C-alpha cells in the first residue's frame, strides 16, 4: 500500500475514534460532571462557541447561553438547530491540503431545507414552499418557526371550521363530476327505500331499523357514511383553504378552480400538498391518516412537524439509531450485558426525543410557540442547544461490528398475466425487511428492522424499441457494502423506457420537454434517493468486485415501499429519511475513507417523439469507502406461486402489437451498461 494511502487511512480511523469520544458511553465510568448550575451564563460568546441551556427555574424554565465546549465536557449533547445543518452524509470534509472536498448536493439540500431553492438549486419562486419531509429533506427550524407563526396568525380564519363535523367521516372517497352525481343518486334511492321501510316498521331511526332488520344494516351504514362524508367535505374545504393550501391562483383556468363539494383536480392537488407538508404516507385522497391530520389545528400539525425535525436533529447529534422497529410481538430483542444480565434493546430514539422535548421545554404546541416568540429567526440561524441524554448501551463503540440482513419475504416469480391475459395475483403477506445488526459478545443484536423492497416484473425497453415485461429480481446470498454514496446518480440503462426519461419544465420563459434529471439525480427524487450503498461480491485475487446493479437506497417512491403489490427493479428501497439516518449511522461507526465527488462526464442521446435528448452527467456522487466493507446477507425468502425460478426472457405485454418473431433476448439488447 502506498505510504500516502496508509497514512490517510490511519488518519481517518483516528478521526473517527476521536469523534466518537464525545459519545455517551456506559462502558466507562463517567467522570464527575458539573451540574447545569455549574455552567455559567456566557452571553459574551459568539454563536459558534455557545449553546442554549434550559434549566428549571422557580416558576418557569430559565434559558441561558453557555460555553458549548464546557457543556460537552459536562456530559451534554449539543443539538444543532441552525440553518446550515445537514445530515452527516452531506457534510463536507477537507483533503490533505486543506482543500474543501465539496459535496455538490449540499447547497441544493440547504436551499431546499431553508425554503429558498428548488431541486435544481435555483431560487424558489416567491410564496412557494418545499414540503419535502416525505422525501428526506426536513425543513429547518427557522422555516418551522415561520410556519408556526403564520399558522397562529391564520387561526382566526380557521375559526369557522367545525372540527366535529370534519371528524365525522374517517375517509372521503375521491369522487367528482358524473361519478359523484351517480353515486349520490344511488344513495338517495337507497335512503328513500330505507325511509319507507322505517316508516312501515315504525322504527324511530334508521339505526333502530337496522336492529330490527339486520339485513338492512349494510345499507343503513352506507347511507350514514355518505351523509357523514357530505357533512365533512365542506369542513375539509374550509380547513384546507384557511391553511392556504386550497387556493385559486391568480388568472386561474377553469380547471384550476375548485368546485365546492367535488373531489376535483384542484382538491386533489391541495390534498397532495397537505400530505407532503405534514409527512403523510397516503395516496392522493382523503383517507384516514389524512383525515386525522385535517382534524388537527394548524398549530398542532406544525408542532408535530417540529417534533419530527427535532427527532432527526437529535438522532444526528446523539449518533443513535434504535427506534423500536426491531421489536417483535414478544417485545424488544434482548442481549446479555457485561454483568451477565439479559436486557432489552432500548428504543433510544423515543427515549432521547422525550428527554429533548422535556429539557427544551417544548412539550406542547403552546410551549413551542412561546419558544419561537422568544427566539428570532436570527437566533435560530446558528442555534445549538445542550441536552443531557441517557448513556448509550454498552454495545456502542467507536467502531461497531455492524452487518445487514435483507429478508426478501414472499417472492413471486409468476408472470403478471396468465395464458388468457388475465392478471395473476401478486399479493404477498410477508414483506421484505432490512435489519441492521451489531455483533456484541458473540451475539447479533438487531438495531432496526425496516420495510424495504425487492425486484419483480417491470417494463423494459428491448433492442427492437418495444417494451416488454422482464423479471428483475433481487440477488440472494452474501454481499458487502464497499461504497456508500451521498447524492448518488443513477445512470439510466438503455433498457429504461424512454417515456420516463423526459419531463416538462419551465425554462427561461418557455415550457418545454427536458431530460428528466429528477430521476437520474442527484436529488431526493433520484432513482437512488439521497443516499445509496452498493451491494457487491468482493473480488478475489486482485479482480474487481462483482456488481449486479443492486443497491440499498433511499427512494421517493414511498408508496412502493408500503404497497403490498409494489416492487422495485431489484434494489432494496428505504424511505429517504430512514436511509439518511441509517447510512449516516453506519459511516460514523465504521472506518471510512472519504473519496468525495467522483467525476463521470457521461453523455448519451436518445430520441423522444421528434427531438433528440442528451443525458449529461458530470458526477457519480459523493463517495465514502468502507474499509473494511460491511457484510450484507440477502436471504432467499419464501418462493410462493407456481413458478419456482425467475423467468429470464422478455414477456410480451398484453394488447401490444410487436414485430414478427420472438422477443429479443434481454442480454442481446442494449440494456448493458458500460
Amino acid at each position, binding site marked *: 500500500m502506498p505510504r500516502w494511502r496508509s497514512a490517510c487511512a490511519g488518519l481517518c480511523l483516528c478521526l473517527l475514534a476521536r469523534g466518537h469520544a464525545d459519545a455517551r458511553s456506559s462502558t466507562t465510568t463517567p467522570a464527575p460532571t458539573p451540574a447545569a448550575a455549574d455552567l455559567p451564563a456566557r452571553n459574551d460568546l459568539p454563536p459558534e462557541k455557545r449553546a442554549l441551556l434550559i434549566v428549571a427555574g422557580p416558576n418557569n424554565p430559565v434559558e441561558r447561553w453557555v460555553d458549548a465546549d464546557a457543556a460537552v465536557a459536562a456530559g451534554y449533547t449539543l443539538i444543532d438547530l441552525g440553518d446550515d445543518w445537514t445530515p452527516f452524509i452531506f457534510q463536507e470534509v477537507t*483533503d490533505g491540503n486543506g482543500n474543501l472536498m465539496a459535496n455538490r448536493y449540499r447547497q441544493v439540500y440547504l436551499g431546499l431545507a431553508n425554503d429558498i431553492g428548488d431541486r435544481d438549486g435555483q431560487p424558489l419562486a416567491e410564496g412557494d414552499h418545499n414540503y419535502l419531509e416525505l422525501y428526506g429533506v426536513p425543513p429547518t427550524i427557522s422555516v418551522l418557526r415561520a410556519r408556526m407563526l403564520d399558522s397562529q396568525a391564520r387561526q382566526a380564519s380557521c375559526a369557522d371550521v367545525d372540527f366535529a363535523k370534519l371528524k365525522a367521516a374517517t375517509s372521503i372517497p375521491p369522487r367528482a363530476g358524473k361519478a359523484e352525481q351517480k353515486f349520490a343518486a344511488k344513495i338517495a334511492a337507497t335512503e328513500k327505500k330505507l325511509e319507507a321501510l322505517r316508516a312501515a316498521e315504525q322504527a324511530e331511526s334508521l339505526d333502530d331499523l337496522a336492529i330490527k332488520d339486520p339485513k338492512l344494516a349494510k345499507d343503513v351504514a352506507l347511507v350514514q357514511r355518505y351523509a357523514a362524508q357530505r357533512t365533512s367535505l365542506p369542513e375539509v374545504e374550509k380547513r384546507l383553504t384557511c391553511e392556504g393550501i386550497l387556493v385559486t391562483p391568480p388568472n386561474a383556468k377553469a380547471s384550476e378552480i375548485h368546485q365546492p363539494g367535488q373531489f376535483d383536480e384542484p382538491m386533489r392537488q391541495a390534498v397532495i400538498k397537505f400530505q407532503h407538508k405534514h409527512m403523510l404516507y397516503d395516496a392522493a385522497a382523503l383517507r384516514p391518516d389524512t383525515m386525522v391530520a385535517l382534524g388537527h389545528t394548524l398549530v398542532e400539525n406544525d408542532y408535530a412537524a417540529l417534533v419530527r425535525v427535532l427527532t432527526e436533529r437529535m438522532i444526528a447529534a446523539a449518533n443513535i439509531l434504535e427506534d423500536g422497529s426491531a421489536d417483535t410481538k414478544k417485545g424488544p430483542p434482548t442481549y446479555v450485558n457485561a454483568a451477565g444480565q439479559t436486557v432489552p434493546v432500548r428504543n433510544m430514539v423515543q427515549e432521547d426525543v422525550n428527554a429533548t422535548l422535556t429539557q427544551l421545554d417544548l412539550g406542547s404546541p403552546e410551549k413551542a410557540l412561546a419558544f419561537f416568540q422568544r427566539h428570532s429567526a436570527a437566533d435560530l440561524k446558528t442555534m445549538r442547544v445542550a441536552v443531557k441524554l441517557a448513556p448509550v448501551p454498552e454495545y456502542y463503540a467507536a467502531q461497531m461490528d455492524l452487518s445487514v440482513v435483507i429478508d426478501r419475504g414472499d417472492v413471486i416469480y409468476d408472470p403478471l398475466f396468465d395464458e388468457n391475459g388475465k392478471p395473476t395475483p401478486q399479493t404477498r403477506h410477508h414483506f421484505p425487511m432490512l435489519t441492521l445488526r451489531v455483533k456484541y459478545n458473540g451475539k447479533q443484536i438487531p438495531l432496526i428492522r425496516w420495510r424495504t423492497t425487492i425486484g419483480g416484473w417491470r417494463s423494459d425497453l428491448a433492442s427492437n424499441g418495444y417494451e416488454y415485461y422482464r423479471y428483475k429480481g433481487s*440477488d440472494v446470498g*452474501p454481499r458487502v457494502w464497499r461504497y456508500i454514496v451521498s447524492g448518488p446518480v443513477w445512470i439510466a440503462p438503455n433498457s*429504461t423506457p424512454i417515456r420516463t426519461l423526459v419531463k416538462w419544465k419551465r425554462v427561461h420563459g418557455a415550457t418545454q420537454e427536458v431530460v428528466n434529471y429528477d430521476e437520474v439525480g442527484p436529488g431526493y427524487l433520484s432513482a437512488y434517493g439521497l443516499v445509496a450503498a452498493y451491494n457487491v461480491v468482493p473480488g478475489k485475487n486482485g479482480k474487481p468486485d462483482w456488481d449486479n*446493479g443492486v443497491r440499498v437506497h433511499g427512494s421517493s417512491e414511498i408508496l412502493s415501499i408500503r404497497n403490498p403489490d409494489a416492487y422495485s427493479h431489484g434494489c432494496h428501497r428505504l424511505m429517504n429519511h430512514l436511509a439518511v439516518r441509517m447510512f449516516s449511522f453506519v459511516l460514523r461507526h465504521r472506518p471510512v475513507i472519504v*473519496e468525495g465527488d467522483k467525476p463521470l462526464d457521461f453523455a448519451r442521446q436518445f430520441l423522444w417523439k421528434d427531438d433528440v435528448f442528451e443525458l449529461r452527467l458530470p458526477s457519480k456522487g459523493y463517495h465514502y469507502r468502507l474499509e473494511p466493507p460491511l457484510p450484507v446477507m440477502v436471504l432467499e425468502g419464501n418462493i410462493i406461486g407456481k413458478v419456482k425460478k425467475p*423467468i429470464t*426472457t422478455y414477456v410480451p405485454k398484453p394488447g401490444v402489437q410487436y414485430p414478427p418473431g420472438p422477443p429479443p433476448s434481454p442480454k442481446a439488447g442494449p440494456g448493458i451498461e458500460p
Partner: protein
Amino acid sequence: MRRASIAFALMLSACGCAHDTHKGPPPDKQEETEGEKGVPAPSTGEPTPQQTESGVQVAPSPTPSGAAVKPLPPKVKIIVHSRGPDKGTAFVFWGKKKLGETPVTLERPRDSGPVDLVVRSEGWFPVHTRAYTFRNDVLYVKMTKLEDRLTIYGAKHEAGEPPPGGMPLDGGVPPPTPAPAPAQ
C-alpha cells in the same frame, strides 16, 4: 464535526450504476465468474491523471502541497459547439431566448443551477442538452440528420405482421424457446 478535517485516499473507480441492468452470473456461480462479468465495481488503485485533471472543484491530491487555495471565479463560461450542421446553420436556444449560432458562449454565475439548452438546425433533429454551472463547461453537441432517424437510440422500427404460425403474442406467456437461465 461539520467540516472535519479528514485525510482521504483517492481511488480509481470504474463503477457502473446499473440499477435495473441485471446481468452476469448468479451468486452461486460467482466464484468462477466474478470479476469477469457484471459491472465492475469501484476498485482500489492509484490516483490517475484523469482524476486529477477532472475539473471537479475540489480535486483531491495525494500529497499536501501547502499551496494556498485560490478562490473560484464567481462566473463560469459555457461554450456550446454543434457537430454535424454547416457553420452558421445551428442555433442555440435557452427557453424562449435565442443565444446565437454555434459556437455560443454563455456566462452564468457559478453554482446558479443547470442551464437547459436546445440546439436547432434546419434538416436536423433538435437536440436538448444541459450545461452545468459548477465549473466551466464545454459541450460538443452531436446532431443527426432527419433522414438518419433510425440511427438514434429509441427510434422505433415499424410494427409488423403477427409472428409466424399466426399465434398472437400474449401477455404472461414466456416465448417458446427461453434463453439459458442463470439461476437466481
